[in-house]
């Protein structure tokens, strides 16, 4: 099953209520055949911008990170559940993929344009287009269209 990370922002509440909201979120994951790996508390801090949710404007919230595995179809169900939860200010899911090894191409990009491979390819493509001639392929020696 693919790995996901859910970022959950809960509104400013007392501690027992925060625990209840998290419990609700995790039971939703369990009910939909998900594997929970852990919950991390990213702290209670001021939001970077004001967010309106469920008829209220929020300026601060508690951030939580939930790491879990689930099938791709359950993410829609979880999104729906979070959307309806009044205590949740904002929710989001991120699919965790393995990191790819990338070769740095900065050296190639910093060269002057005449020495860059992609510019050379562009010039060649331009030249190819100019040389294109319409091939009538009529099999006749003369021009039947008189142009």
């Amino acid at each position, binding site marked *: 099953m693919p790995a996901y990370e859910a*970022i959950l*922002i809960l509104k400013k509440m007392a501690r027992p209520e925060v625990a209840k909201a998290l419990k609700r979120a995790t039971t939703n994951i369990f009910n939909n055949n998900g594997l929970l790996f852990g919950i991390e508390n990213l702290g209670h801090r001021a*939001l*970077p*911008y004001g*967010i309106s949710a469920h008829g209220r404007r929020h300026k601060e*919230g508690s*951030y939580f*990170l939930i790491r879990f595995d689930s099938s791709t179809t359950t993410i829609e169900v979880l999104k729906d559940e979070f959307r309806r939860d009044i205590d949740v*200010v*904002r929710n*989001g899911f*991120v699919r965790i993929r393995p*990191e790819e090894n*990338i*070769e*740095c*191409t*900065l*050296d190639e*990009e*910093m060269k002057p344009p*005449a*020495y860059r491979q992609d510019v*050379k390819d562009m010039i060649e493509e331009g030249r190819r287009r*100019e040389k294109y*001639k*319409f*091939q*009538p392929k009529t099999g006749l*020696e*003369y*021009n039947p*269209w*008189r*142009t």
Partner: protein
Amino acid sequence: MMPIVRTLARSRSMFSLSASVVNPAFSSSIIRSNYIPVRGIKTTDTMHPDPVYDEDEKVLKKVLEERQQQCEDLPIGMDNPYEKPKKICILCEHGITPNYKNIKLLYQFVSPYTGMPYERHITGLCKQKQEQVEKAILLAVNLGLMSNYLKEVEFLKDPKLCDPERPFRPHKY
């Protein structure tokens, strides 16, 4: 056979009259076309430098190695000893992949004046890393982790990676 020859002769004469408006695709020895190619004309005198092809150096190296085996007095085929080390962008150098949770790193590529991510000529990242950084910033902003219109006060004193006054490549600003 006779009727075919006559029709051909007629068509030839017809085409020689209207030679100026002939289709270049049919330019053959029968038809004398007045078509002038417009694109191939040289309009300026500027001479562009011949690009240095890496293939030539490789071929030279091979040839010199072959000849070295025959006669010992020839120059040895070796790598260019004066070749400068290849430039690598700062994230590739340290092997860092930007993550949407690491907002401190992402804010280093954001302008403290506008709150927008800097372009590639200011950050000095390679194309793929710049794309990764921009994607991570967008994700962080959408999830409510990062601001989209300013750089948070706690991150303003961080080490400067991007200087818009001294970009890696010239810009019009």
